[in-house]
């Protein structure tokens, strides 16, 4: 994606080297600050994360390299039609408002480490924990590979090495850096490096806006240029019909699914106190305005001036790199700004990857190894196993990132993370607020939801395999039925099964116990 950049000189590479070394230093500091050899200390930093670090780690985790590259490209391609990204990033915080404070109180009371701990405590069902853990790991492991591939691509254009070698060296180098600081300091190192990466990201977004406005002119001017050209006027006119349905679909699926990222749930657990969590989320509510809106503006401005800087048939994810190259060519200051911006991009990729990795290893260690393979294992043993699992998953992800370098189509085909994650919503949202929710219907609902989502998502492939061309008189096509993501149909079926099933099979003892449990943790 960034092989359109002018290769960095020794000073620029040294700047990035210093940044990477500082991450290792933070890992070592995290190791020195460890308080005990426990899961809670390694995977949640001893639940002592204060307001500022919590805010920055949430920010750096939620806004990945995708936000910069893909969102700029989408705005470039769809114009203001991509303004929906502003709303779905805001919707994530709205969803947090609904469940994060209640979950935090339960987590501190019962010492939860993983999302599975909440499910085990609330529903007392091992199979539900196992299913939910598999869903979460499957959903975010793919995301981890995607981040590692983006890291490799990010380094492709920076050196004078051939792109293949640069990609492999990039993946291996950044994998090693993450492995060292994460193994040393666990969550503490991840959260502290996230804090640095979050600050760099904020600076990066501000810089991006300033240099793009300075180089290309105002957004108003870009709007006038786009409006004057009949081929681009659609980019500034409102979406209609199915496009509006897609807006609503994105707001629902990313709002719910993004809030249910396991790494985000664990940040809720890791807050020092509820006030820190609430303050952090309150600030997060405004960050889409300073982040998503900026990349939309950059995409729009780039599109308006594209005839002077780019060529037709540019890939969406290459737009930002081409804008950066134009700025690099302008002046030495422009070149230096791009170096800082590039470091911010690297920070965004690494902060998302390290958080996802730590979350995967905690879930596999505690909810699969600890519950099914070595039940009753001591905390210190689980923590040691967790470090090995971290290394194992990171090496596997790095290997796949290298092996799949030219198979992004395969990765995209398997990328159903939000369709899968939203299936956890009834267990978390209803489970926290509705005492009558029963474990059996929740489990069955989750299975039904996943089946519906995957069947709809892969219906065209399935029809091809089964040699079916039409269904109910309509040709079987891929894409979103009526503009809505397959996961939302699955979620509707899932919720109906969970609610109707729970109403149909009352269990007064369990319901009363759950009710007491929730009442005891509620402030109202």
């Amino acid at each position, binding site marked *: 994606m960034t092989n359109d950049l002018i290769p960095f000189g020794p000073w620029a590479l040294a700047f990035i080297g210093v940044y990477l070394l500082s991450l290792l230093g933070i890992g070592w500091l995290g190791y020195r600050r460890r308080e005990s050899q426990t899961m809670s200390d390694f995977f949640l930093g001893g639940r002592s994360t204060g307001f500022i670090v919590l805010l920055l780690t949430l920010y750096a985790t939620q806004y990945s390299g995708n936000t910069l590259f893909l969102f700029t490209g989408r705005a470039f391609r769809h114009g*203001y039609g991509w*303004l*929906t990204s*502003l*709303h779905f990033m*805001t*919707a994530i*915080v*709205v969803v947090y*408002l609904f469940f994060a*404070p209640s979950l935090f109180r339960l987590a501190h009371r019962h010492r939860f480490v993983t999302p599975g701990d909440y499910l085990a405590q609330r529903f007392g069902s091992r199979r539900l924990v196992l299913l939910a853990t598999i869903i979460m790991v499957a959903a975010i492991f793919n995301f981890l590979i995607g981040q590692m591939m983006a890291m490799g691509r990010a380094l492709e254009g920076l050196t004078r090495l051939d792109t293949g070698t640069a990609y492999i060296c990039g993946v291996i180098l950044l994998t090693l850096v993450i492995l060292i600081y994460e193994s040393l300091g666990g969550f503490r190192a991840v959260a502290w490096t996230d804090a640095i990466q979050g600050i760099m990201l904020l600076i990066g977004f501000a810089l991006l806006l300033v240099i793009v406005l300075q180089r290309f002119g*105002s*957004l*108003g*001017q870009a*709007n*006038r240029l786009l*409006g004057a050209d009949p081929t681009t*006027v659609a980019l*500034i*006119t*409102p*979406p*209609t019909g199915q496009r*509006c349905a897609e*807006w*609503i679909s994105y*707001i629902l699926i990313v709002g719910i699914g993004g809030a249910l990222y396991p790494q985000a749930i664990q940040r809720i657990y890791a807050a020092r106190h*509820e*006030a820190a969590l*609430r*303050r952090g*989320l*309150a*600030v997060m*509510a*405004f960050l*889409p*305005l300073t982040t998503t*809106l900026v990349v939309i503006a950059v995409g729009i401005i780039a599109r308006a001036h594209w005839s002077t800087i780019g060529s037709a048939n540019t890939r969406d994810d290459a737009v930002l790199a081409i804008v950066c190259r134009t700025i690099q060519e302008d002046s030495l200051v422009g070149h230096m700004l791009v170096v800082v911006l590039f470091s911010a991009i690297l920070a965004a990729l690494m902060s998302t990857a390290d958080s996802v990795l730590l979350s995967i290893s905690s879930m596999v260690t505690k909810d699969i190894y600890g519950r099914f393979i070595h039940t009753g294992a001591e905390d210190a043993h689980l923590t040691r196993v967790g470090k090995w699992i971290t290394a194992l998953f990171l090496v596997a992800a790095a290997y796949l990132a290298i092996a799949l370098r030219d198979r992004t189509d395969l990765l995209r085909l398997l990328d159903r993370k939000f369709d899968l994650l939203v299936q956890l919503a009834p267990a978390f949202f209803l489970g926290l607020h509705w005492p009558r929710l029963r474990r059996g219907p929740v489990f069955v609902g989750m299975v039904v939801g996943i089946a519906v989502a995957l069947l709809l998502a892969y219906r065209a492939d399935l029809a091809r395999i089964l040699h079916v061309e039409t269904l109910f008189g309509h040709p079987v096509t891929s894409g979103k039925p009526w503009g809505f993501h397959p996961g939302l149909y699955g979620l509707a079926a899932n919720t109906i099964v969970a609610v109707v099933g729970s109403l149909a099979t009352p269990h007064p003892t369990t319901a009363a116990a759950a009710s007491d449990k929730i009442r005891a943790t509620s*402030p*109202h």
Partner: protein
Amino acid sequence: MTPLTRWFLGGLYLALFAVAVPWYWPADSTRQWAGMPAWVGASVVASIAISLLTAGLLLRGGADEERAQ
């Protein structure tokens, strides 16, 4: 928070998101506000209102909890 307040807030969020999604604008609208397409301005203003409401509720909920303790 009373059930009535919860329903009111739920309705308020629905209304704000309904304003944020530009379904009610004519497809060929080229009206401008301060150099921006008017529908974009309305959508961004709705987003700011959602952020303000969410932040206010998060902070107010924290103050309520401190009082309860």
